[in-house]
């Protein structure tokens, strides 16, 4: 848990830490990370979120968010 003196965060892909704000959605996180690639697989604390629910799915503080880019290209 975050301490009272530090703002709550969420972790993206077990590496990036970004500041959590109340009401933050999956779509907000994708935009903040500048993840422009269209084929993503998103999970929040282990639960998969489909693309049509990105805008409506709120992410809790301290969440473990995985945003997997499917390996197109190449």
């Amino acid at each position, binding site marked *: 848990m975050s301490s009272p003196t530090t703002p709550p965060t969420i972790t993206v*892909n*077990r*590496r990036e830490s970004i500041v959590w704000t109340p009401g933050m959605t999956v779509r907000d996180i994708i935009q903040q990370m*500048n*993840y*422009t*690639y*269209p*084929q993503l*697989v*998103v999970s929040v604390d282990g639960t*998969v979120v*489909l*693309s*049509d629910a990105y805008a409506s799915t709120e992410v809790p503080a301290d969440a473990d968010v*995985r*945003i*997997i*880019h*499917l*390996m*197109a*290209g*190449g």
Partner: protein
Amino acid sequence: MRYQELAVLAEFTYTIPALSRGYADQTLYVNVGHDQIVARPVSDDMKERFVGGRGFDLWLLWHAVNDATRWDSPENEIVISSGPCGGTSQYPGSGKSIAATISPLTDIVIDSNAGGHFGPYLKFAGWDAIELQGLAERDVIVTIDASAGRGGEGRVRIIEVPDDCPVDTHVLGHWINSTFAASESDRQLMAFVSTGSGSRATRMGCLNFSLYDRKRRDLRYKQAGRGGIGTVFRHKRIRAVIVHTTPFGADTNGPADPARIARTGADMRQEITRWDPVQNRMRSRGTSYLVQIMNDYDLLPVKNFQFGTHEDAPQISGDVWEQRFTQNMPDGCWYGCTLACAHAVDNYRVQTGPYAGGCVIVDGPEYETIAGVGSNCGIFDPAAILEINFYCDTYGIDTISFGTSMAFAMECFEAGVLTEDLTGGIDLSFGNADGALAVLHQMAEGVGFGLILGQGIRRMKQIFVERFDADPCFVDDIGMEAKGLEYSEYMTKESLAQQGGYGLTNKGPQHDEAWLIFMDQVNNQIPTFEDKAEALHYFPMWRTWFGLCGFCKLPWNDVVDPENALSVDPAKVPHHVENYIQIFSGVTGHEVTADDLIRMSERVYNLQRVFNLRLGKGQRDHDRVPYRSQGPVTPAEYLSRQDRYDRQLRDWLGLDPNTMTTEEKLAAHREHRTDQYERLIDAVYARRGWTSNGIPTPDTLRALDLADASILEVVQRYL
């Protein structure tokens, strides 16, 4: 001139077979040096162990050459094969050809794939593969006429090329049509392989594979670009190989279970039609969509892989190309491909060189070309990219090797290694498209600095050091080649797995074997050496499998049903893997599992590794990569990503960057990153069943049913 008037040097007749379960059960051997044409049977063992495509190519080449064979030896062959599923029109992306030879760039085997109609038509004509061997005394064309249809008499000829026959592909194609095709139907049922004038004096010649575009009523071309196969083709003095087949349909490939293929194909076509418009939009912009994505993620090669992003990248992004490409055309490179990503710019007015003023079709450009001759050379002008793309194709020059080589030359020019005195007065500053085009035309003419650039980066480095007094460390660091092959167009500095994806390949740094950048750098899915090694086992094997069967990789993961997110391992796109199991089983009648597909590839992959050993390469030393692919070489590169690099010094090495000079930081990064790569090599070799020197062990080979005496004998030399 009609073909009846041409001098026939050799002729061979055969009964055109019906295909059975994806195979003709014979291959065609043509020796243009001895005017010899022979049919060779395909055994059940060959099909079971090597499948087709790249597997057949390697196995035939293995038996054709010896330990001392080099690219220009008479016994070196070009082998072209599609694979058992090649020519299937019910499943998208099933018309690929794979060509292989000993490369003039790498001195080991190169394989390269292309779309177009040649591979399927060759099989419909009754041949699972064609071997081209020998050195002709004069320029020749090989023709395979199967227009009599199955059961009829086919005819293979070696024909002397007349004086009026052009060399460059776009004009050669029109000559072939006017000479060999009597009707529109003939044009639709003919396909050919050719190169161009640029393959004569360079080592980076490509092969063009034709397709007749029924809607445009004109010829188009797809390229087997990598490794200089076109250079070998031209050295053999083969102007073209033409195949003429008969009307074909869904059952021409002789599938064991046509209904199964039709069901699977229908599902996939629906998936593409539904999801591509909201995903990568391949149907409207092809692989050009990747330009903006790569730029957004700091992965677009800019100015010889120094940087990963550029403010002008939107000028060459997919949005721009979508406007340039003619829309609403059936742009598949094989029939039935709903993904249809092979776009073209019609009515392009050529601006420079021998065809200036002409109006042509430019095929593509695809991502690799846009990034290679565009951003990597600091060129962000779509018109210039089109001009270079057109000339590379018709001259028969690989756009990737040209782009990466030009980027290297441009950095050397800006660093003072090259001067206008040394380039013959050509300004090779980054962004100077006129300079790049001038060198490209010289490559076709075999003159000037074009002669040097056409040798590729490995030989350029040697020339620059020996003749131009270049610093060998500097050119080694920034010359983006491995094994002698120029890098394709992805930045790898921040992805250790992709450094291995390029360096630990059999043929050299080409992305079709392993493409793990996002999985590693962005997703952080494979953090440990063991994770990376597993990915560098599975994905190269999986991608190799496409080339055994005649498949294109793109429908596997460039469009995906969102439900894939709920699968156990979304990165593998399991429901598409299942599609390929259904298609392979439906064509061949052999029921297979996902593990079986990987095992097929492992066998072929290990054969290619042993092939490299046989040719004196294929050991750990040959898997090393230039430092530019691992980390920042120059202070400018460091400063472009200073926050990231400084953070890494703190997180990885416990250093305080505030107390270090830029040179000290560069040195610390280099020591760490090169050590990481060595540890990656150890992990990957162990996973692949190789020794610490990269040698497949006899146990590994036996487990893969590759214990042939000739194979084990090669391996024993290194143990």
